[in-house]
């Protein structure tokens, strides 16, 4: 198997400059994501999911521990040619239209010709169902369409690894269904997906592997089927793990 993400003893703490107190965000987290997996990192708000994703992408540096992504350091920007990222919220330039925004991201990938970029944009907007909004300003888009735009920009470079932070967050059931369908299709194309979520039914329907994180500690990491052997659903298992950890 080919390991795309390898995290070893990742520890991250923040120091409050005023109170001089240390807050531990993630504590000695180790996990490996293999090629072809759909890995869901689940946990309540503030459990360390986004911190882990930020460290994987090189936005923050670990206080200690090692992170390797596609065999490279998270700080190596060249690795991003093979990665697609969707953040939790829609962080776009609202003075641009969808087409202009995708052209900007496409330009960062250095497409060989303008025509190649146009073809790719046409392809991703078709796949994500935002073709009719192509010339709409981002400030006028609904939450669901912003999320579709997020997915569209994340697959422009045909990445082998997708990192999604709460892809179903704030989306209505229809939107969630459609996004799940897109992610399933992407997985079928052979893409590896690493996503964080606190929406357990979504993870249960989509993921092959899961990690459960609570208060910065990874309580479980492995196949979803291995966790779910006693006939209980994921929500129940998750609650049991949380209760046993708090004891």
């Amino acid at each position: 198997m080919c390991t795309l993400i390898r995290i070893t003893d990742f520890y991250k703490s923040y120091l409050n400059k005023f109170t001089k107190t240390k807050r531990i965000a993630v504590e000695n987290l180790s996990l490996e994501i293999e090629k072809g997996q759909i890995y869901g990192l689940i946990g309540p708000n503030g459990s360390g999911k986004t911190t882990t994703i930020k460290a994987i992408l090189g936005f923050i540096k670990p206080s200690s521990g090692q992170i390797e992504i596609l065999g490279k350091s998270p700080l190596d920007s060249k690795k991003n040619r093979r990665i697609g990222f969707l953040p939790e919220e829609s962080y776009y330039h609202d003075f641009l239209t969808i087409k202009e925004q995708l052209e900007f991201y496409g330009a960062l990938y250095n497409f060989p010709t303008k025509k190649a970029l146009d073809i790719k944009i046409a392809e991703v907007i078709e796949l994500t169902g935002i073709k009719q909004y192509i010339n709409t300003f981002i400030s006028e888009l609904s939450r669901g369409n912003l999320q579709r735009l997020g997915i569209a920009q994340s697959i422009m470079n045909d990445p082998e690894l997708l990192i999604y932070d709460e892809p179903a967050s704030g989306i209505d059931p229809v939107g969630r269904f459609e996004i799940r369908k897109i992610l399933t299709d992407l997985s079928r194309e052979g893409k590896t997906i690493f996503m964080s979520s606190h929406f357990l039914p979504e993870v249960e329907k989509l993921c092959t592997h899961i990690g459960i994180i609570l208060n910065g500690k990874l309580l479980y990491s492995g196949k979803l089927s291995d966790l779910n052997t006693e006939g209980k659903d994921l929500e129940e298992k998750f609650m049991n793990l949380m209760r046993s950890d708090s004891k």
Partner: protein
Amino acid sequence: MIPVAKLVIKESIRKKIYHFLIIFSLLILFVLYSYSPFGVKQQTKTALDFSLSILPLLGLFVTLFTCTTLIMDDIKSKKIYLILSKPISRFSYLCGKLLGAYLSIFLVYFIMGIIIFCFVYFSGMRQFFSLTKIFWAIFFSFFEMMLMANVIVCLAFFLPQGTAISLSIFSYLFFHIKSNFLKYALLSNPNSVKTFIWKIFYYIIPDFEYFNLRDQAVHNFVLKNSQIYMPLLYGTATLFLFLTIAAIFLYRKEL
């Protein structure tokens, strides 16, 4: 780097306050020139002096407006996540942002420069002024703003927006008058510790008076080659110094 620069220019052009600044400055120049009858050398000189004095103020406004939020806005609004998750290094991103800011400022200087040139050219008093000297005066005013852009970006990394703006304005003024402070210190007590500290400051802090060629342009004073090459060299070195400082800040920044 180039796509980021293009985006900064697009943002500057689409923001209405930028249009307001240009229209406002054009209005000032129009009013000024309407009150300066052509054919009178002294009044042409006064109008040129006023234009070249107001140009850095306008430039400073645009620079402040463009640069205080240039990078910190991307960090606060988290737009930077979607940029730096693409194959672009933090340094290229910074250079792209600054290049975009320089070009936005250049656009203002270009428009204003053409107006000033046209005014002198068609004033009937052209023989009393050197267009080359006016060009260098405008160019160095623009160069000053490029330096200010780097200084503002550095300050905005660790200061709130309002404080960064205030300190930037203060820095701009101080960079112009710092040599006077040293002269005063040397006059009062040449061997004191205070004077020694001023001397250190003198060599660390940029001296914007090197870039001030307004007198040469307005009064047609002699402009030596060294008055062009030396500030160019000095300015480029200072530009890279502040770029390096900004790059260090950005690399250390947790996003």
